[in-house]
Protein backbone atom coordinates (compact mmCIF):
# COMPACT_ATOMS: atom_id res chain seq x y z
CA UNK A 1 0.00 0.00 0.00
CA UNK A 2 2.66 2.43 1.09
CA UNK A 3 4.77 1.56 -1.90
CA UNK A 4 1.97 2.24 -4.34
CA UNK A 5 1.35 5.63 -2.79
CA UNK A 6 5.02 6.43 -3.09
CA UNK A 7 5.00 5.30 -6.69
CA UNK A 8 1.98 7.40 -7.45
CA UNK A 9 3.54 10.42 -5.82
CA UNK A 10 6.77 10.02 -7.70
CA UNK A 11 4.85 9.58 -10.96
CA UNK A 12 2.90 12.74 -10.31
CA UNK A 13 6.04 14.59 -9.42
CA UNK A 14 7.73 13.44 -12.59
CA UNK A 15 4.88 14.66 -14.77
CA UNK A 16 4.82 17.97 -12.97
CA UNK A 17 8.54 18.39 -13.46
CA UNK A 18 8.31 17.41 -17.12
CA UNK A 19 5.61 19.95 -17.83
CA UNK A 20 7.59 22.86 -16.48
CA UNK A 21 9.07 23.95 -19.86
CA UNK A 22 5.59 25.04 -20.94
CA UNK A 23 6.00 27.93 -18.52
CA UNK A 24 8.92 29.23 -20.53
CA UNK A 25 6.65 29.82 -23.49
CA UNK A 26 4.65 32.40 -21.54
CA UNK A 27 7.09 35.12 -22.41
CA UNK A 28 6.36 35.72 -26.13
CA UNK A 29 2.71 36.65 -25.42
CA UNK A 30 3.82 39.91 -23.92
CA UNK A 31 5.38 40.80 -27.25
CA UNK A 32 1.97 41.23 -28.88
CA UNK A 33 1.62 44.65 -27.35
CA UNK A 34 0.00 47.40 -29.39
CA UNK A 35 2.99 49.67 -29.73
CA UNK A 36 1.17 52.43 -31.68
CA UNK A 37 0.87 55.92 -30.28
CA UNK A 38 -2.77 56.55 -31.34
CA UNK A 39 -5.59 54.29 -30.16
CA UNK A 40 -7.17 52.01 -32.72
CA UNK A 41 -10.25 53.88 -34.02
CA UNK A 42 -11.33 50.83 -36.03
CA UNK A 43 -11.88 48.94 -32.78
CA UNK A 44 -15.57 48.31 -31.96
CA UNK A 45 -15.19 49.35 -28.35
CA UNK A 46 -13.64 52.70 -29.31
CA UNK A 47 -16.42 53.35 -31.87
CA UNK A 48 -19.06 52.56 -29.24
CA UNK A 49 -17.43 54.97 -26.80
CA UNK A 50 -17.41 57.70 -29.43
CA UNK A 51 -21.12 57.15 -30.19
CA UNK A 52 -22.10 57.30 -26.50
CA UNK A 53 -20.16 60.49 -25.92
CA UNK A 54 -21.63 62.06 -29.08
CA UNK A 55 -25.14 61.18 -27.88
CA UNK A 56 -24.50 62.80 -24.49
CA UNK A 57 -23.26 65.90 -26.27
CA UNK A 58 -26.41 65.96 -28.44
CA UNK A 59 -28.58 65.72 -25.31
CA UNK A 60 -26.75 68.64 -23.67
CA UNK A 61 -27.16 70.81 -26.77
CA UNK A 62 -30.85 69.91 -27.08
CA UNK A 63 -31.44 70.75 -23.41
CA UNK A 64 -29.77 74.19 -23.47
CA UNK A 65 -31.22 75.22 -26.83
CA UNK A 66 -34.30 77.55 -26.56
CA UNK A 67 -37.48 75.77 -27.68
CA UNK A 68 -38.97 76.40 -31.12
CA UNK A 69 -35.77 77.56 -32.73
CA UNK A 70 -35.40 74.26 -34.59
CA UNK A 71 -38.65 72.50 -33.84
CA UNK A 72 -41.52 72.80 -31.36
CA UNK A 73 -40.67 69.86 -29.02
CA UNK A 74 -37.58 68.67 -27.17
CA UNK A 75 -37.88 65.19 -28.69
CA UNK A 76 -37.75 66.54 -32.22
CA UNK A 77 -34.80 68.80 -31.32
CA UNK A 78 -32.95 65.87 -29.83
CA UNK A 79 -33.58 63.75 -32.90
CA UNK A 80 -32.31 66.38 -35.30
CA UNK A 81 -29.27 67.29 -33.21
CA UNK A 82 -28.42 63.61 -32.57
CA UNK A 83 -28.40 62.85 -36.27
CA UNK A 84 -26.13 65.82 -36.89
CA UNK A 85 -23.70 65.17 -34.04
CA UNK A 86 -23.50 61.41 -34.67
CA UNK A 87 -22.89 62.12 -38.34
CA UNK A 88 -19.89 64.26 -37.47
CA UNK A 89 -18.58 61.92 -34.77
CA UNK A 90 -18.83 58.68 -36.72
CA UNK A 91 -17.48 60.19 -39.94
CA UNK A 92 -14.51 61.51 -37.95
CA UNK A 93 -13.92 58.08 -36.40
CA UNK A 94 -14.16 56.39 -39.79
CA UNK A 95 -11.65 58.79 -41.33
CA UNK A 96 -9.20 58.24 -38.45
CA UNK A 97 -9.68 54.49 -38.80
CA UNK A 98 -8.84 54.61 -42.50
CA UNK A 99 -5.88 56.96 -42.01
CA UNK A 100 -4.57 54.98 -39.04
CA UNK A 101 -1.67 53.32 -40.80
CA UNK A 102 -0.47 56.60 -42.24
CA UNK A 103 -0.90 58.54 -38.98
CA UNK A 104 1.07 56.01 -36.96
CA UNK A 105 4.03 56.43 -39.23
CA UNK A 106 4.28 60.12 -38.28
CA UNK A 107 6.17 61.36 -35.20
CA UNK A 108 3.89 61.32 -32.14
CA UNK A 109 3.06 65.02 -31.85
CA UNK A 110 2.51 65.43 -35.56
CA UNK A 111 0.22 62.41 -35.60
CA UNK A 112 -1.82 63.97 -32.82
CA UNK A 113 -1.99 67.38 -34.55
CA UNK A 114 -2.93 65.81 -37.87
CA UNK A 115 -5.69 63.74 -36.26
CA UNK A 116 -7.09 66.89 -34.63
CA UNK A 117 -7.06 68.88 -37.89
CA UNK A 118 -8.68 65.97 -39.72
CA UNK A 119 -11.52 65.98 -37.18
CA UNK A 120 -12.06 69.74 -37.60
CA UNK A 121 -12.11 69.32 -41.39
CA UNK A 122 -14.71 66.57 -41.02
CA UNK A 123 -16.84 68.95 -38.92
CA UNK A 124 -16.78 71.65 -41.61
CA UNK A 125 -17.53 69.12 -44.35
CA UNK A 126 -20.48 67.59 -42.51
CA UNK A 127 -21.95 71.03 -41.61
CA UNK A 128 -21.76 72.05 -45.24
CA UNK A 129 -23.24 68.74 -46.37
CA UNK A 130 -26.11 69.13 -43.90
CA UNK A 131 -27.03 72.54 -45.32
CA UNK A 132 -26.96 71.15 -48.87
CA UNK A 133 -29.08 68.21 -47.85
CA UNK A 134 -31.71 70.53 -46.37
CA UNK A 135 -31.69 72.63 -49.55
CA UNK A 136 -31.88 69.62 -51.88
CA UNK A 137 -34.83 68.17 -49.93
CA UNK A 138 -36.60 71.48 -50.20
CA UNK A 139 -36.61 72.33 -46.47
CA UNK A 140 -34.79 75.62 -47.08
CA UNK A 141 -34.94 77.84 -50.12
CA UNK A 142 -31.23 78.58 -50.57
CA UNK A 143 -27.89 76.79 -49.87
CA UNK A 144 -26.71 80.00 -48.19
CA UNK A 145 -29.31 80.68 -45.49
CA UNK A 146 -28.69 83.57 -43.05
CA UNK A 147 -27.65 81.19 -40.27
CA UNK A 148 -25.09 79.47 -42.54
CA UNK A 149 -22.10 81.27 -40.98
CA UNK A 150 -23.40 80.82 -37.43
CA UNK A 151 -23.81 77.08 -37.95
CA UNK A 152 -20.20 76.72 -39.03
CA UNK A 153 -18.85 78.82 -36.18
CA UNK A 154 -20.96 76.96 -33.64
CA UNK A 155 -20.12 73.47 -34.98
CA UNK A 156 -16.43 74.23 -35.27
CA UNK A 157 -16.16 75.69 -31.76
CA UNK A 158 -17.95 72.80 -30.13
CA UNK A 159 -16.01 70.30 -32.24
CA UNK A 160 -12.68 71.95 -31.36
CA UNK A 161 -13.40 71.74 -27.63
CA UNK A 162 -14.96 68.28 -27.53
CA UNK A 163 -12.45 66.67 -29.92
CA UNK A 164 -9.59 68.16 -27.95
CA UNK A 165 -10.94 66.64 -24.76
CA UNK A 166 -11.73 63.31 -26.42
CA UNK A 167 -8.33 62.88 -28.04
CA UNK A 168 -6.75 63.71 -24.70
CA UNK A 169 -8.93 61.09 -22.98
CA UNK A 170 -8.26 58.31 -25.49
CA UNK A 171 -4.58 59.08 -25.47
CA UNK A 172 -4.34 58.97 -21.68
CA UNK A 173 -6.19 55.65 -21.58
CA UNK A 174 -4.03 54.19 -24.29
CA UNK A 175 -0.85 55.43 -22.64
CA UNK A 176 -1.87 53.82 -19.35
CA UNK A 177 -2.36 50.48 -21.08
CA UNK A 178 1.00 50.73 -22.79
CA UNK A 179 2.75 51.62 -19.55
CA UNK A 180 1.13 48.75 -17.67
CA UNK A 181 2.34 46.32 -20.30
CA UNK A 182 5.87 47.65 -20.39
CA UNK A 183 6.04 47.50 -16.59
CA UNK A 184 4.92 43.89 -16.73
CA UNK A 185 7.68 43.17 -19.21
CA UNK A 186 10.30 44.88 -17.04
CA UNK A 187 9.15 42.80 -14.06
CA UNK A 188 9.44 39.63 -16.10
CA UNK A 189 12.97 40.56 -17.10
CA UNK A 190 13.91 41.29 -13.51
CA UNK A 191 12.52 37.91 -12.46
CA UNK A 192 14.40 36.15 -15.24
CA UNK A 193 17.64 37.75 -14.17
CA UNK A 194 17.03 36.27 -10.72
CA UNK A 195 15.74 32.89 -11.78
CA UNK A 196 18.10 31.79 -14.52
CA UNK A 197 16.05 29.55 -16.85
CA UNK A 198 19.05 27.44 -17.79
CA UNK A 199 19.63 26.57 -14.13
CA UNK A 200 15.94 25.91 -13.44
CA UNK A 201 15.29 23.53 -16.31
CA UNK A 202 18.57 21.65 -15.93
CA UNK A 203 17.81 21.22 -12.23
CA UNK A 204 14.29 19.97 -12.96
CA UNK A 205 15.71 17.49 -15.46
CA UNK A 206 18.06 16.20 -12.82
CA UNK A 207 15.34 15.99 -10.19
CA UNK A 208 13.30 13.94 -12.69
CA UNK A 209 16.30 11.65 -13.00
CA UNK A 210 16.68 11.37 -9.20
CA UNK A 211 13.01 10.47 -8.61
CA UNK A 212 13.87 7.03 -9.95
CA UNK A 213 17.38 6.39 -8.72
CA UNK A 214 17.41 8.32 -5.42
CA UNK A 215 13.98 9.57 -4.28
CA UNK A 216 15.35 10.91 -1.00
CA UNK A 217 17.82 13.11 -2.84
CA UNK A 218 15.06 14.29 -5.15
CA UNK A 219 13.01 15.27 -2.11
CA UNK A 220 15.83 17.35 -0.66
CA UNK A 221 16.46 18.96 -4.03
CA UNK A 222 12.84 20.04 -4.33
CA UNK A 223 12.87 21.46 -0.79
CA UNK A 224 16.01 23.40 -1.60
CA UNK A 225 14.53 24.70 -4.80
CA UNK A 226 11.37 25.82 -2.99
CA UNK A 227 13.39 27.79 -0.43
CA UNK A 228 15.50 29.34 -3.15
CA UNK A 229 12.46 30.39 -5.18
CA UNK A 230 10.81 31.87 -2.11
CA UNK A 231 13.83 34.13 -1.69
CA UNK A 232 13.87 34.98 -5.38
CA UNK A 233 10.26 36.10 -5.17
CA UNK A 234 10.91 38.28 -2.11
CA UNK A 235 10.66 42.05 -2.32
CA UNK A 236 13.87 43.67 -3.44
CA UNK A 237 14.09 45.81 -0.31
CA UNK A 238 13.94 42.95 2.20
CA UNK A 239 16.85 42.82 4.64
CA UNK A 240 17.74 39.42 6.08
CA UNK A 241 20.21 38.19 8.73
CA UNK A 242 23.60 37.12 7.38
CA UNK A 243 22.94 33.56 8.54
CA UNK A 244 19.82 33.29 6.34
CA UNK A 245 21.75 34.45 3.31
CA UNK A 246 24.40 31.81 3.97
CA UNK A 247 21.71 29.13 4.37
CA UNK A 248 20.05 29.98 1.08
CA UNK A 249 23.39 30.12 -0.69
CA UNK A 250 24.20 26.64 0.63
CA UNK A 251 20.89 25.29 -0.62
CA UNK A 252 21.61 26.79 -4.00
CA UNK A 253 25.06 25.18 -4.01
CA UNK A 254 23.55 21.80 -3.13
CA UNK A 255 21.44 22.05 -6.29
CA UNK A 256 24.41 23.09 -8.42
CA UNK A 257 26.36 20.19 -6.95
CA UNK A 258 23.79 17.74 -8.28
CA UNK A 259 24.35 19.12 -11.77
CA UNK A 260 28.06 19.69 -11.71
CA UNK A 261 28.95 16.78 -9.47
CA UNK A 262 32.63 16.72 -8.61
CA UNK A 263 33.35 19.58 -10.98
CA UNK A 264 32.28 22.08 -8.32
CA UNK A 265 34.11 22.50 -5.03
CA UNK A 266 33.33 25.27 -2.59
CA UNK A 267 35.59 26.48 0.20
CA UNK A 268 33.73 28.38 2.93
CA UNK A 269 35.28 30.69 5.47
CA UNK A 270 32.65 32.39 7.59
CA UNK A 271 33.64 34.72 10.41
CA UNK A 272 31.44 35.58 13.38
CA UNK A 273 28.75 38.17 12.95
CA UNK A 274 26.70 40.13 15.47
CA UNK A 275 23.17 38.78 15.49
CA UNK A 276 21.74 42.04 14.21
CA UNK A 277 23.94 42.06 11.09
CA UNK A 278 21.68 42.11 8.03
CA UNK A 279 22.12 42.37 4.29
CA UNK A 280 19.75 42.76 1.34
CA UNK A 281 18.03 39.52 0.40
CA UNK A 282 19.91 37.61 -2.34
CA UNK A 283 23.31 39.20 -1.96
CA UNK A 284 25.39 36.06 -1.65
CA UNK A 285 23.58 33.66 -3.99
CA UNK A 286 23.92 35.79 -7.18
CA UNK A 287 27.65 36.21 -6.46
CA UNK A 288 28.02 32.43 -6.29
CA UNK A 289 25.84 31.91 -9.35
CA UNK A 290 27.99 34.37 -11.26
CA UNK A 291 31.16 32.56 -10.16
CA UNK A 292 29.74 29.19 -11.21
CA UNK A 293 28.29 30.37 -14.49
CA UNK A 294 31.45 32.10 -15.70
CA UNK A 295 34.13 30.23 -13.75
CA UNK A 296 33.11 26.59 -13.28
CA UNK A 297 30.60 25.69 -16.00
CA UNK A 298 32.91 26.52 -18.94
CA UNK A 299 35.78 24.45 -17.47
CA UNK A 300 35.58 20.78 -18.47
CA UNK A 301 37.39 19.77 -15.27
CA UNK A 302 35.59 22.31 -13.06
CA UNK A 303 37.30 24.01 -10.14
CA UNK A 304 36.93 25.53 -6.70
CA UNK A 305 35.01 28.62 -5.67
CA UNK A 306 36.11 30.18 -2.42
CA UNK A 307 33.76 32.27 -0.31
CA UNK A 308 34.86 34.38 2.63
CA UNK A 309 32.60 36.46 4.85
CA UNK A 310 33.88 38.57 7.71
CA UNK A 311 33.08 41.61 9.80
CA UNK A 312 35.56 44.44 10.18
CA UNK A 313 35.13 48.11 11.17
CA UNK A 314 31.35 47.76 11.39
CA UNK A 315 31.18 46.53 7.82
CA UNK A 316 30.28 43.19 6.29
CA UNK A 317 32.85 41.97 3.79
CA UNK A 318 32.15 39.27 1.22
CA UNK A 319 34.80 37.91 -1.10
CA UNK A 320 34.09 35.33 -3.79
CA UNK A 321 36.95 33.97 -5.89
CA UNK A 322 36.59 31.70 -8.90
CA UNK A 323 38.94 30.37 -11.57
CA UNK A 324 38.57 31.74 -15.07
CA UNK A 325 38.67 29.59 -18.18
CA UNK A 326 41.50 30.42 -20.58
CA UNK A 327 40.26 33.10 -22.94
CA UNK A 328 38.08 31.27 -25.40
CA UNK A 329 38.61 32.17 -29.01
CA UNK A 330 35.72 34.55 -29.45
CA UNK A 331 34.51 36.52 -32.40
CA UNK A 332 33.13 39.31 -30.29
CA UNK A 333 34.08 40.62 -26.86
CA UNK A 334 31.77 39.09 -24.29
CA UNK A 335 29.34 41.50 -22.68
CA UNK A 336 30.37 42.53 -19.16
CA UNK A 337 28.57 40.59 -16.48
CA UNK A 338 25.08 41.97 -16.02
CA UNK A 339 24.71 40.27 -12.66
CA UNK A 340 27.41 42.40 -11.10
CA UNK A 341 26.07 45.58 -12.69
CA UNK A 342 22.58 44.85 -11.31
CA UNK A 343 23.97 44.19 -7.84
CA UNK A 344 26.03 47.35 -7.87
CA UNK A 345 22.98 49.47 -8.65
CA UNK A 346 20.93 47.63 -6.01
CA UNK A 347 23.55 48.39 -3.35
CA UNK A 348 23.70 51.97 -4.54
CA UNK A 349 19.97 52.41 -3.98
CA UNK A 350 20.09 50.85 -0.48
CA UNK A 351 23.24 52.33 0.93
CA UNK A 352 24.40 55.09 -1.42
CA UNK A 353 28.19 55.24 -1.38
CA UNK A 354 28.48 53.29 1.89
CA UNK A 355 28.49 49.99 -0.03
CA UNK A 356 31.07 48.93 -2.63
CA UNK A 357 31.42 46.12 -5.14
CA UNK A 358 34.80 45.56 -6.74
CA UNK A 359 35.63 42.99 -9.37
CA UNK A 360 39.20 42.17 -10.33
CA UNK A 361 40.82 39.62 -12.57
CA UNK A 362 44.36 38.44 -12.14
CA UNK A 363 46.37 35.28 -12.67
CA UNK A 364 43.39 33.47 -14.13
CA UNK A 365 41.31 34.09 -11.03
CA UNK A 366 38.30 36.37 -10.74
CA UNK A 367 37.66 38.06 -7.41
CA UNK A 368 34.54 39.95 -6.40
CA UNK A 369 34.65 41.88 -3.12
CA UNK A 370 31.54 43.40 -1.59
CA UNK A 371 31.49 45.71 1.42
CA UNK A 372 28.21 46.56 3.14
CA UNK A 373 27.41 48.58 6.27
CA UNK A 374 26.40 46.20 9.08
CA UNK A 375 23.33 48.12 10.17
CA UNK A 376 20.65 48.23 7.52
CA UNK A 377 20.13 51.08 5.13
CA UNK A 378 20.57 54.78 5.75
CA UNK A 379 16.93 55.03 6.82
Amino acid sequence: MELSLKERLSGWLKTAVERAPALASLEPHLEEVDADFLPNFCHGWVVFNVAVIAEMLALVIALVMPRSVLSPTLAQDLLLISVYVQWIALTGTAVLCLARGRLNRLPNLRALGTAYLVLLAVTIAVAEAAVWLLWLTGRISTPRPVWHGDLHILSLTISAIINGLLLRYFLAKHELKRRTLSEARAKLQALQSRIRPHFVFNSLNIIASLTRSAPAKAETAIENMADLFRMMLAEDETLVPVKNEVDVAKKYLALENLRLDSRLQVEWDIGTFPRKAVMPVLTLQPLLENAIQHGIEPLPAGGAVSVRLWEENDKIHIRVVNPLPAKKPKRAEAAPSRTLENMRSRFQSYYGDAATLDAAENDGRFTVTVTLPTRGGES
Partner: protein
Amino acid sequence: MRILIVDDEKLARDRLRELLSDIGGCTVVGEAMNGAEAVERTAELNPDVLLMDIRMPGMDGLEAAMHLMGMENPPSVIFTTAYDQHALDAFEVNAVDYLLKPIRKDRLANALTKARKLTMKQLQEISQARKEPPARTHLSVHLRGNIRLVPIPDVIYFLADSKYVVVRTASEEHLVEDSLIHLEQEYGGRFLRVHRNALVATAFIKGIEKSPAGTWQVNLRGTDKKLEVSRRHTAGVRRWARNRPM
Protein backbone atom coordinates in the same frame (compact mmCIF):
# COMPACT_ATOMS: atom_id res chain seq x y z
CA MET B 1 19.41 1.63 -33.18
CA ARG B 2 22.79 2.50 -31.69
CA ILE B 3 22.79 5.63 -29.57
CA LEU B 4 25.53 7.85 -28.14
CA ILE B 5 24.56 10.08 -25.21
CA VAL B 6 26.38 13.42 -24.91
CA ASP B 7 25.85 15.66 -21.88
CA ASP B 8 28.17 17.22 -19.32
CA GLU B 9 25.82 16.39 -16.42
CA LYS B 10 26.00 12.82 -15.24
CA LEU B 11 22.45 12.70 -13.90
CA ALA B 12 21.15 14.05 -17.21
CA ARG B 13 22.93 11.19 -19.01
CA ASP B 14 21.47 8.71 -16.51
CA ARG B 15 17.97 10.02 -17.19
CA LEU B 16 18.37 9.53 -20.94
CA ARG B 17 19.67 6.01 -20.37
CA GLU B 18 16.65 5.13 -18.23
CA LEU B 19 14.14 6.63 -20.62
CA LEU B 20 15.78 4.80 -23.53
CA SER B 21 15.60 1.48 -21.70
CA ASP B 22 11.87 2.16 -21.05
CA ILE B 23 11.32 2.85 -24.72
CA GLY B 24 13.34 -0.18 -25.83
CA GLY B 25 14.50 -1.08 -29.31
CA CYS B 26 17.79 0.76 -28.98
CA THR B 27 21.23 0.30 -27.47
CA VAL B 28 23.28 2.96 -25.75
CA VAL B 29 26.75 2.35 -27.14
CA GLY B 30 28.49 5.02 -25.11
CA GLU B 31 28.53 8.39 -23.39
CA ALA B 32 30.53 11.57 -23.83
CA MET B 33 30.89 14.64 -21.64
CA ASN B 34 31.61 17.33 -24.21
CA GLY B 35 31.73 18.01 -27.91
CA ALA B 36 35.31 16.90 -28.47
CA GLU B 37 34.66 13.58 -26.73
CA ALA B 38 31.48 13.17 -28.77
CA VAL B 39 33.42 13.47 -32.03
CA GLU B 40 36.03 10.98 -30.85
CA ARG B 41 33.45 8.47 -29.57
CA THR B 42 31.45 8.76 -32.78
CA ALA B 43 34.48 7.94 -34.91
CA GLU B 44 35.25 5.02 -32.62
CA LEU B 45 31.77 3.56 -31.96
CA ASN B 46 29.88 4.50 -35.12
CA PRO B 47 26.46 5.19 -33.53
CA ASP B 48 23.29 5.79 -35.58
CA VAL B 49 21.99 8.63 -33.43
CA LEU B 50 23.55 11.19 -31.08
CA LEU B 51 21.47 12.65 -28.25
CA MET B 52 23.53 15.75 -27.59
CA ASP B 53 23.26 18.67 -25.18
CA ILE B 54 23.90 22.03 -26.83
CA ARG B 55 25.65 23.81 -23.98
CA MET B 56 28.74 22.00 -22.75
CA PRO B 57 32.14 23.14 -21.49
CA GLY B 58 34.92 23.19 -24.07
CA MET B 59 33.41 22.27 -27.40
CA ASP B 60 29.63 22.71 -27.48
CA GLY B 61 27.06 20.52 -29.21
CA LEU B 62 26.64 22.64 -32.32
CA GLU B 63 30.35 22.74 -33.05
CA ALA B 64 30.61 18.98 -32.51
CA ALA B 65 27.74 18.43 -34.97
CA MET B 66 29.56 20.59 -37.53
CA HIS B 67 32.74 18.55 -37.20
CA LEU B 68 30.72 15.36 -37.62
CA MET B 69 29.48 16.64 -40.98
CA GLY B 70 32.96 15.89 -42.30
CA MET B 71 32.52 12.15 -41.77
CA GLU B 72 31.72 9.92 -44.69
CA ASN B 73 28.55 8.70 -43.06
CA PRO B 74 27.62 11.09 -40.24
CA PRO B 75 25.09 9.96 -37.57
CA SER B 76 21.72 11.64 -37.01
CA VAL B 77 21.75 14.22 -34.23
CA ILE B 78 18.95 15.12 -31.81
CA PHE B 79 19.85 18.12 -29.67
CA THR B 80 18.80 18.47 -26.05
CA THR B 81 18.70 21.76 -24.19
CA ALA B 82 17.38 23.33 -21.02
CA TYR B 83 16.81 26.81 -22.37
CA ASP B 84 18.22 28.59 -25.38
CA GLN B 85 15.61 30.99 -26.71
CA HIS B 86 17.56 32.32 -29.68
CA ALA B 87 18.88 28.97 -30.82
CA LEU B 88 15.49 27.29 -30.47
CA ASP B 89 13.79 29.70 -32.85
CA ALA B 90 16.46 28.81 -35.40
CA PHE B 91 15.90 25.09 -34.73
CA GLU B 92 12.23 25.49 -35.56
CA VAL B 93 12.91 27.49 -38.69
CA ASN B 94 15.44 24.96 -39.97
CA ALA B 95 13.44 21.90 -38.97
CA VAL B 96 16.15 20.47 -36.72
CA ASP B 97 15.08 18.08 -33.95
CA TYR B 98 15.53 19.10 -30.36
CA LEU B 99 14.29 17.99 -26.95
CA LEU B 100 13.62 20.32 -24.06
CA LYS B 101 14.78 19.39 -20.57
CA PRO B 102 13.30 17.90 -18.49
CA ILE B 103 13.09 15.35 -21.25
CA ARG B 104 9.77 13.55 -21.72
CA LYS B 105 9.60 9.94 -22.68
CA ASP B 106 6.97 10.35 -25.42
CA ARG B 107 8.85 13.24 -27.03
CA LEU B 108 12.07 11.24 -26.95
CA ALA B 109 10.43 8.17 -28.51
CA ASN B 110 8.86 10.35 -31.17
CA ALA B 111 12.15 12.10 -31.98
CA LEU B 112 13.94 8.75 -32.33
CA THR B 113 11.45 7.42 -34.87
CA LYS B 114 12.01 10.37 -37.16
CA ALA B 115 15.68 11.11 -36.41
CA ARG B 116 17.17 12.78 -39.47
CA LYS B 117 20.64 13.56 -40.67
CA LEU B 118 21.54 17.22 -40.45
CA THR B 119 23.03 19.36 -43.16
CA MET B 120 25.88 21.82 -42.80
CA LYS B 121 23.57 24.60 -43.93
CA GLN B 122 21.10 23.96 -41.10
CA LEU B 123 23.90 24.01 -38.55
CA GLN B 124 25.41 27.19 -39.89
CA GLU B 125 22.08 28.97 -39.78
CA ILE B 126 21.49 27.92 -36.20
CA SER B 127 24.97 29.04 -35.25
CA GLN B 128 24.33 32.44 -36.86
CA ALA B 129 21.10 32.86 -34.90
CA ARG B 130 22.89 32.70 -31.57
CA LYS B 131 23.61 35.93 -29.78
CA GLU B 132 27.38 35.66 -30.01
CA PRO B 133 28.31 32.91 -32.43
CA PRO B 134 31.44 31.50 -30.80
CA ALA B 135 34.48 30.67 -32.90
CA ARG B 136 35.29 26.98 -33.23
CA THR B 137 37.44 25.61 -30.42
CA HIS B 138 38.92 22.93 -32.70
CA LEU B 139 39.65 22.35 -36.36
CA SER B 140 38.71 19.04 -37.85
CA VAL B 141 41.14 17.18 -40.04
CA HIS B 142 40.03 14.26 -42.16
CA LEU B 143 42.26 11.22 -42.26
CA ARG B 144 41.06 8.37 -44.44
CA GLY B 145 37.40 9.02 -43.71
CA ASN B 146 38.08 9.52 -40.05
CA ILE B 147 38.11 12.74 -38.06
CA ARG B 148 40.94 14.17 -36.04
CA LEU B 149 40.41 17.26 -33.88
CA VAL B 150 43.14 19.88 -33.54
CA PRO B 151 42.61 22.28 -30.59
CA ILE B 152 43.07 25.90 -31.69
CA PRO B 153 45.45 26.74 -28.80
CA ASP B 154 47.87 24.07 -30.11
CA VAL B 155 48.18 25.64 -33.53
CA ILE B 156 51.53 27.36 -34.17
CA TYR B 157 50.84 28.59 -37.68
CA PHE B 158 48.75 28.18 -40.81
CA LEU B 159 50.58 28.13 -44.12
CA ALA B 160 48.66 28.30 -47.37
CA ASP B 161 49.77 25.92 -50.09
CA SER B 162 48.58 26.13 -53.66
CA LYS B 163 45.37 24.29 -52.84
CA TYR B 164 45.20 23.60 -49.11
CA VAL B 165 46.13 25.22 -45.86
CA VAL B 166 48.71 23.44 -43.74
CA VAL B 167 48.09 23.63 -39.99
CA ARG B 168 51.17 23.12 -37.84
CA THR B 169 51.23 22.11 -34.17
CA ALA B 170 54.26 21.20 -32.05
CA SER B 171 53.92 17.53 -32.96
CA GLU B 172 51.91 17.32 -36.16
CA GLU B 173 51.14 18.81 -39.51
CA HIS B 174 47.76 18.49 -41.25
CA LEU B 175 45.83 19.81 -44.20
CA VAL B 176 42.59 21.68 -43.56
CA GLU B 177 40.02 22.92 -46.01
CA ASP B 178 39.46 26.37 -44.51
CA SER B 179 40.84 29.42 -46.27
CA LEU B 180 43.39 31.73 -44.60
CA ILE B 181 41.03 34.69 -44.92
CA HIS B 182 38.26 32.78 -43.19
CA LEU B 183 40.59 31.63 -40.40
CA GLU B 184 41.90 35.16 -39.91
CA GLN B 185 38.36 36.48 -39.53
CA GLU B 186 37.33 33.74 -37.15
CA TYR B 187 40.29 33.97 -34.79
CA GLY B 188 41.10 37.68 -35.12
CA GLY B 189 43.50 38.64 -32.33
CA ARG B 190 44.96 35.19 -31.75
CA PHE B 191 46.83 35.00 -35.07
CA LEU B 192 49.03 37.51 -36.88
CA ARG B 193 49.32 37.75 -40.64
CA VAL B 194 53.03 37.78 -41.52
CA HIS B 195 52.84 36.92 -45.20
CA ARG B 196 50.22 36.60 -47.90
CA ASN B 197 50.30 32.85 -47.25
CA ALA B 198 50.97 32.67 -43.50
CA LEU B 199 49.09 33.25 -40.23
CA VAL B 200 51.11 32.85 -37.02
CA ALA B 201 49.79 32.27 -33.48
CA THR B 202 51.07 35.25 -31.50
CA ALA B 203 51.41 33.07 -28.38
CA PHE B 204 54.13 31.04 -30.13
CA ILE B 205 56.21 33.94 -31.44
CA LYS B 206 59.63 33.96 -29.78
CA GLY B 207 61.03 36.92 -31.63
CA ILE B 208 61.53 38.72 -34.88
CA GLU B 209 64.97 38.95 -36.47
CA LYS B 210 66.66 39.99 -39.65
CA SER B 211 67.84 37.17 -41.90
CA PRO B 212 71.26 37.25 -43.61
CA ALA B 213 69.38 38.09 -46.80
CA GLY B 214 68.08 41.27 -45.18
CA THR B 215 64.43 40.26 -44.83
CA TRP B 216 62.58 39.80 -41.54
CA GLN B 217 61.82 36.40 -40.06
CA VAL B 218 59.62 35.15 -37.22
CA ASN B 219 61.18 32.76 -34.69
CA LEU B 220 58.73 30.34 -33.18
CA ARG B 221 58.49 28.19 -30.10
CA GLY B 222 57.70 24.52 -30.74
CA THR B 223 59.29 24.39 -34.17
CA ASP B 224 62.62 25.22 -35.72
CA LYS B 225 61.03 26.52 -38.85
CA LYS B 226 61.37 30.28 -39.36
CA LEU B 227 58.63 32.04 -41.28
CA GLU B 228 59.43 34.87 -43.60
CA VAL B 229 57.72 38.22 -43.13
CA SER B 230 56.75 39.71 -46.46
CA ARG B 231 57.61 43.33 -47.15
CA ARG B 232 53.95 44.27 -47.20
CA HIS B 233 53.38 42.89 -43.71
CA THR B 234 56.65 44.07 -42.11
CA ALA B 235 55.15 47.26 -40.74
CA GLY B 236 52.20 45.40 -39.21
CA VAL B 237 54.42 42.75 -37.61
CA ARG B 238 56.82 45.33 -36.14
CA ARG B 239 53.89 47.32 -34.76
CA TRP B 240 52.61 44.17 -33.10
CA ALA B 241 56.09 43.46 -31.65
CA ARG B 242 56.29 46.96 -30.12
CA ASN B 243 52.86 46.70 -28.47
CA ARG B 244 53.36 43.12 -27.39
CA PRO B 245 52.11 42.57 -23.85
CA MET B 246 55.04 41.20 -21.86
